[in-house]
């Protein structure tokens, strides 16, 4: 469509008109509907829907104060982002606020989102500086802030204390070599025929968990300045080690297609002794209704190679709140973003099971008491890095990494061949 001055003015005029109408409707006491597109998890933590949580209905209270009806449209991660991208390309969308995971937050998407810095200047988020600058940087392209971080999922190493005891191990591993050594010792077949894998990882669900594992050996996909680093001795060593574990049966035979569901079930049923997975899974691993080993699955930060000078490594995924440029209730959407981002509500959402993006939240005594894993998570998040996504081909690069790394693990390629191919295919996409 050709954008003329007239059409731009008409669009701007209609946006201003819509905003004025929204405010007028709210002031007139008429209930306005605000539509939110998110994963179910965001509704659960913002409304306190999970049984046993104590943070309360944060979004509901805001809606009541502002005479707004909240409509949550929820879907799984990939479908909801697909839907959001389609909505963003329309003339106007019914979606007023959406939650976006960092791997999808590319510059291309950011151009379709409302710049939030002017809103934050006009009506600032309380203690905005309390949100770590690296998180703000991950939602800022070309000096334009397009999203406000809301939730993080940071990987740790979960281990089954009961299986450790069964195999004569008394403490969790402290180095990557110990992780590998323990994984071998923890691989066995029970008398009833159940196979126990010493280590597992949801390798079929994307590069996040796999990179967390490889990161332990100092391997990385690229640094934060987008320098591709797959063709490194660390990556070759890491892939070779994982290949050996796969060959020995330490990793499950369906490694390449392992979904998050399968991994969770294998940990809950005691068919996996250790897993690289976000800290927040602690709750479901220890849910007495679902887990045979409730109370016995512990989590620690992932140990780093001592030679690297670091004690731990961690990778994190960030969910952020965005306002579509073509939405009609921007003012109300910003008001809800401000409310959900406040220091007090960050703690309340954390009590509802959210990964708090404000480090100060971890000092809250209620959090320490209710969710013991958060103390370990606090250590991990302080060192955590994200998979950079500040280039448009981010999704494609993730797919290439999955394809090549799995080929190396399954033995279809040597690690050297796989990393050389990765480097060759990824560099042009990142530099484009």
């Amino acid at each position, binding site marked *: 469509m050709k954008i003329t001055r007239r059409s731009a003015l008409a669009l701007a005029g209609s946006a201003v008109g819509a905003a004025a109408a929204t405010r007028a409707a709210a002031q007139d006491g008429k209930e306005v509907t605000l539509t939110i597109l998110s994963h179910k998890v965001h509704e659960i933590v913002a409304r306190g829907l999970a049984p046993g949580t104590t943070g309360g209905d944060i979004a509901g209270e805001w809606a009541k104060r502002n005479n707004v009806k909240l409509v949550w449209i929820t879907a799984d991660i990939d479908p909801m982002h697909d839907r959001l991208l389609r909505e963003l390309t329309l003339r106007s969308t019914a979606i007023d606020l959406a939650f976006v995971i960092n791997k999808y937050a590319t510059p291309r998407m950011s151009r379709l989102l409302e710049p939030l810095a002017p809103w934050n200047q006009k009506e600032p988020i309380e203690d905005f500086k309390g949100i770590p600058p690296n998180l703000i940087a991950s939602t800022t392209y070309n000096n334009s802030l397009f999203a406000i971080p809301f939730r993080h999922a940071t990987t740790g190493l979960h281990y089954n204390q009961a299986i450790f005891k069964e195999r004569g191990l008394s403490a969790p591993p402290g180095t990557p070599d110990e992780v590998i050594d323990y994984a071998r010792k923890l691989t066995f077949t029970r008398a009833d025929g159940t196979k126990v894998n010493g280590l597992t990882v949801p390798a079929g*669900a994307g590069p996040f968990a796999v990179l967390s594992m490889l990161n332990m050996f100092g391997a990385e996909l690229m640094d934060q300045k987008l320098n591709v680093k797959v063709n490194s001795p660390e990556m070759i060593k890491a892939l070779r080690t994982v290949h050996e574990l796969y060959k020995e049966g330490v990793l499950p035979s369906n490694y390449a297609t392992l979904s998050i569901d399968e991994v969770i079930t294998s940990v809950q*049923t005691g068919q996996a002794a250790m897993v690289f997975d976000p800290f927040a899974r602690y709750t479901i691993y220890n849910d007495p209704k679902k887990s045979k080993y409730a109370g016995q699955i512990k989590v620690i930060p992932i140990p780093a190679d001592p030679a690297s000078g670091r004690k731990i490594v961690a990778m994190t995924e960030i969910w952020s709140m965005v306002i579509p440029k073509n939405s009609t209730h921007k003012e109300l959407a910003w008001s809800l973003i401000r409310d959900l981002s406040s220091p007090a509500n960050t703690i309340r959402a954390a009590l509802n099971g959210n990964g708090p993006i404000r480090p100060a939240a971890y000092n809250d005594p209620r959090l320490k008491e209710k969710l013991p894993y958060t103390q370990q998570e606090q250590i991990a998040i302080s060192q955590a890095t994200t998979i950079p996504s500040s280039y448009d081909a981010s999704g494609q690069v993730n797919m290439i990494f999955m394809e090549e790394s799995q080929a190396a693990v399954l033995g279809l390629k040597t690690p050297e061949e796989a990393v050389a191919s990765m480097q060759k295919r990824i560099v042009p996409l990142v530099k484009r």
Partner: protein
Amino acid sequence: MPKALRQLLRAFAVLVVFCWSAGPILFVVSSSFKRQLDIFAYPPKVVFQPTFDHYVALWHQWDAFLPTLWNSVIASVGATVLAVGVSFLGGYVYSRYSGKLLAISAVYMIAIRLLPPIVVTLPLFPVVDYLGLSDTLTVLILLYASFWVSMCTMIIKTFIDEIPTELDEAAFVDGATHLQTITRVILPLSLQGMMAAAIFVFVYSWNEYLFALIFTTQNAKTAPLVISEVMDAIYGTDWGVLFAGVTIQLVPVVALVVLGQRLLVAGLTAGAVKG
């Protein structure tokens, strides 16, 4: 080969086929009544104390499931009626008339059926939005019916082909109009084929995910979307609740096929031209 051995082998083959086809369904249905901890127990628990906890949890935690199930009913029935109705008329024309244009259109209908549905969604999304049909059951009914009209037309055509043209001629001789011939002679005798076509459309519409995902948000959301949400990528799947939802989702389809079987096997045209 001795008769006894032959019978034994036949029984074994039937058992294998039964386990192969019914095993996963039985696993899902029985698991919906098991405690969460027993679902993946090893060795599997065949005898267990049934529980309705998962059905209660589905009701409480996924309160959108029942309304969306109703949406599924409307979309599936609407699409089935529309597709079969249109296909019947199309099938009649293809069966009773011939010509170059008809032959070309028949090939065209089959050819477009080969397009993967995802291809259509890209250009269709802004159009549906422009027409104000986004998040309505109307768009689902139209899409589901459109995708099956070609196949249903061919299915019904083959059934109408079996109806002797002498019956049409007899009706015309008796003074019936074209419309009367179609509705009073051809339609009753084509019911078998229409039912077969209806089952195809209904089962497809009932389980359809892609179009529902793309073209609905809340008002017209269907049950498969809610079931897909239960298969959660963050908290992990609540298997018991998922199996409860799938069991409920299975019931209408199984009922339809069981009921429809009678019509499918009945030889409606038997003896039609006798005497």
